[in-house]
């Protein structure tokens, strides 16, 4: 199953989910009705002076009481609608909201040392290799078990979180396995399904959750009532009682919700394990992480009260549920390990809490050793890379097959690229002033002939410390591999999310101001602008990426024409070359009606609009469109780094994360 099929499946699952949801609502209503009618019958029987055990009749079950039924239906639906609406308002904030409400501590990208840096590096490498923006990273400081999660509405606002226990007890390779598992949830579209689940189930569970919320109201700092608790004792008792009764009433909803959650989640886990191994080419990492969970008394437990609602998003079972029950959100550890390592005997190594401390040291010292080892393992078999305007033969299909399917070769490639980025640039990308200077200076450098003039314009626009920062980076740029430019910008994106709105506005204006419009550097300029705006604009202004609808390519032919024409013109100065590559693209997408547009009619604004419309095309047709784009770029068997970057940016704009392109050795 490739990326595009996964996307379609994700869309289909939503329909399936709705069906289950409706069934669950029906079940809840019927359940509530039975309880209420039974309760009424019970009261009547109790009030009867000549009550005996045998006089209690079960007739109420067959006596249809439409008035009560209507009342209960309306009441239940009301609660569900309110619950869903409420959850959706929270989910709009995406992954950040989930990480924060689980008590996560944000890890600043500028951390330079210790386990946080190791974690940031792992996340960075994996995300650049998979072609998705580097997610924000959170640590659940309070949790001593080994667990992790990825959450978000889309790869753009994804966050990755790990527990303190995982960070202390796992070494670099194990952690990489765990994070790779989470990344495959991001790539497979499971994350969106997971959020939709929270939204929908939030409705059905609404009553039960309210009850649990009240019960716990004084038990955890994250609850608003916690701060009132110490003042009023009797009030607290009253709230406990109310909480308990409300929870009992909501039990039906919680029951159905847990069933749905478990059913949807469990099957996804094996797949994510398999993809994680496929990506890291190191099954031992993931296996040994799973074994450690099995050996740890804490296991993978999550104690935060919010953990209940999002149990299906974690790496491993976060709630106790016996061995392998209908309510397990994850397959048992033994089963997961057996799939990865058939020789597993079912015995877990014993890990005791004292290891928490030594584990930290181990993780720290292990990180460098593992890094070296990993490099030794990785060099060799692969790594024939597409260097600037290198001649290569690969089919458009081969390129598009890589979308959403990063391989160990991509990981090696990225590892190698990042390793060779000058340290000054890497540090700059991790620090908010440096990140801005870095991007601006990269843009200036792309336009060799007008650099001086651009600098002048820049000095007018930015304040002195920023220009100072740019100048200090300039020297390091000469040794930068052009292929590493886009990865550097990817690295800078989570850092830029630390800007305030005002600073972001100023930075955006500077970027737009110095963007080369035509000629040398224009293509790179557009790519950078696109990558930045696509990933930062939603963060600062809460706009969502266009949703995928079932639009067919035929209905958006005009936009197709714009996209392919632009690509053709960008790659070729010569009119006839452009024409021939356009024709190849047209054959690939099988839309004979397309005509090459004049270069003047392919402005950047038009291209933006075209991409926004094309993003709604159904996944299988997107595949065809991307093959067309790839065919256009590769028509002359010559592709510059700029062209490949543009192709990746377009793919990204269509919602298809394309790993850094390189050509496997034949």
């Amino acid at each position, binding site marked *: 199953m490739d990326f595009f099929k996964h996307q379609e499946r994700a869309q289909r699952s939503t329909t399936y989910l709705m069906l289950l949801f409706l069934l669950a609502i029906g079940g809840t209503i019927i359940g509530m009705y039975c309880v209420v009618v039974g309760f009424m019958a019970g009261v009547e029987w109790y009030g009867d002076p000549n009550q005996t055990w045998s006089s209690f009749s079960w007739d109420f079950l067959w006596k249809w009481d439409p008035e009560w039924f209507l009342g209960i239906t309306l009441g239940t639906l009301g609660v569900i609608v*309110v619950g869903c*609406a*409420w959850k959706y*308002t*929270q989910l709009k*904030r995406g992954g*950040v*909201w989930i990480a*924060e409400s689980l008590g996560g501590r*944000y*890890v*600043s990208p*500028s*951390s*330079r040392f210790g386990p946080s840096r190791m974690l940031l590096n792992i996340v960075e490498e994996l995300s650049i290799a998979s072609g998705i923006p580097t997610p924000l990273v959170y640590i659940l400081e309070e949790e001593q078990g080994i667990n992790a999660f990825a959450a978000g509405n889309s790869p753009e606002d994804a966050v990755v979180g790990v527990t303190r226990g995982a960070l202390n007890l796992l070494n670099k390779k194990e952690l990489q396995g765990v994070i790779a598992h989470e990344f495959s949830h991001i790539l497979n579209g499971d994350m969106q399904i997971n959020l939709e689940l929270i939204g929908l189930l939030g409705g059905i569970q609404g009553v039960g959750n309210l009850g649990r919320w009240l019960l716990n109201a004084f038990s955890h700092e994250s609850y*608003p009532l916690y*701060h009132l608790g110490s003042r009023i004792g009797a009030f607290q008792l009253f709230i406990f009682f109310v909480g308990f009764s409300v929870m009992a009433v909501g039990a039906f909803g919680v029951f159905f919700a847990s069933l749905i959650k478990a059913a949807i989640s469990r099957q996804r886990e094996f797949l994510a394990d398999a993809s994680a191994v496929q990506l890291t080419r190191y099954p031992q990492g993931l296996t040994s992480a799973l074994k450690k969970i099995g050996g740890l008394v804490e296991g993978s437990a999550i104690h935060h009260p919010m953990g209940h609602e999002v149990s299906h998003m974690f790496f491993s079972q976060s709630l106790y549920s016996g061995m392998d029950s209908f309510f397990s959100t994850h397959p048992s550890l033994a089963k997961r390990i057996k799939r990865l390592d058939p020789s597993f005997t079912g015995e877990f190594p014993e890990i005791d809490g004292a290891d928490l401390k030594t584990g930290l040291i181990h993780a720290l010292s292990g990180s460098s050793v593992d890094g070296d080892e990993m490099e030794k393992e990785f060099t060799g078999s692969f790594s024939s890379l597409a260097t600037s305007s290198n001649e290569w033969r690969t089919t458009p299909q081969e390129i598009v097959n890589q979308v959403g399917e990063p391989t160990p070769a991509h990981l090696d490639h990225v590892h190698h690229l990042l390793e060779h980025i000058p340290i000054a640039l890497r540090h700059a990308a991790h*620090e*908010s*002033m*440096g990140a801005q200077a870095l991007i601006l200076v990269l843009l200036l450098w792309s336009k060799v002939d007008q650099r*001086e003039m651009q*600098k*002048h314009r820049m*000095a007018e626009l930015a304040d002195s*410390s920023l*220009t*100072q*920062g740019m*100048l*200090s980076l300039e020297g390091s740029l000469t040794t930068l591999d052009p292929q590493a430019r886009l990865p550097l910008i990817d690295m800078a994106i989570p850092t830029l999310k*630390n*800007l*305030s*709105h*005002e*600073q972001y506005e100023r930075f955006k204006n500077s970027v737009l101001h110095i963007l080369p419009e035509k000629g040398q550097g224009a293509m790179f300029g557009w790519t950078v602008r696109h990558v930045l705006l696509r990933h930062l604009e939603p963060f600062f202004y809460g706009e969502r990426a266009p949703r995928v609808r079932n639009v067919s390519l035929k209905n958006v032919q005009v936009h197709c024409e714009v996209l392919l024409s632009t690509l053709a013109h960008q790659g070729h100065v010569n009119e006839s070359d452009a024409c021939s590559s356009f024709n190849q693209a047209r054959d690939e997408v099988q839309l004979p009606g397309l005509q090459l547009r004049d270069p003047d009619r392919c402005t950047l604004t038009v291209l933006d609009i075209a991409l926004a419309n094309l993003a709604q095309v159904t996944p299988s047709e997107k595949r065809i469109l991307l093959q067309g784009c790839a065919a256009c770029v590769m028509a002359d068997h010559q592709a510059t780094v700029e062209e490949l970057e543009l192709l990746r940016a377009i793919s990204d704009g269509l919602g298809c994360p394309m790993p850094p392109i390189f050509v496997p050795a034949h």
Partner: protein
Amino acid sequence: MAIEDMFLLAMSLLFVGVLFWAMSSYNRLVAYRNRFKNAFSQIDVQLERRYDLIPNLVETAKAYMKHERETLQNVIEARNQASQAAKQAAAKPEDAGAIQGLIGAEGILTGAMGRLFAVMESYPDLKANQTMMQLSQELTTTEDRVAFARQAYNDMVMTYNTERESFPTNIVAQGFSFKTAQLLELQEPQKREVPQVTFA
């Protein structure tokens, strides 16, 4: 429908509406608070970097400044104080007192550093020292970064405070004890001579 029923319905709708509003205000306040707390982590990393540089700088200066023991000692003490205050502030950036403490300690440190640099003027050998030049260049960069991260933090604190005080969100803010956050207003370190670069 009887008039009482209508009334009941209207009241319950109103109740649900108010509940929703309260919950979303609460959520918004939490979101804003988390944003500025996260922003503090950016300042913290840079401040730490600065606190790491200062002892090196003092060590280098010691070799040249035989008679300025006290000035150097002051810098180190102020640095230790500030470092302690920064740790406390980083643990709870929403605590106005902790931020106040940091502002105070930073003020003392900036003063002590200013005096050190002033004294250094009379030691041309020290000023020409390669390590010293590197360190003071590094210090300037770090200070610029602090200033920048501080700007972001202050912008976010302003957004939070404005939201917290505006009607009707202030009712929720008071009910759930959202406290006013403190702006991190530091006095800018004196501009030292750094290689000035001009654009032709």
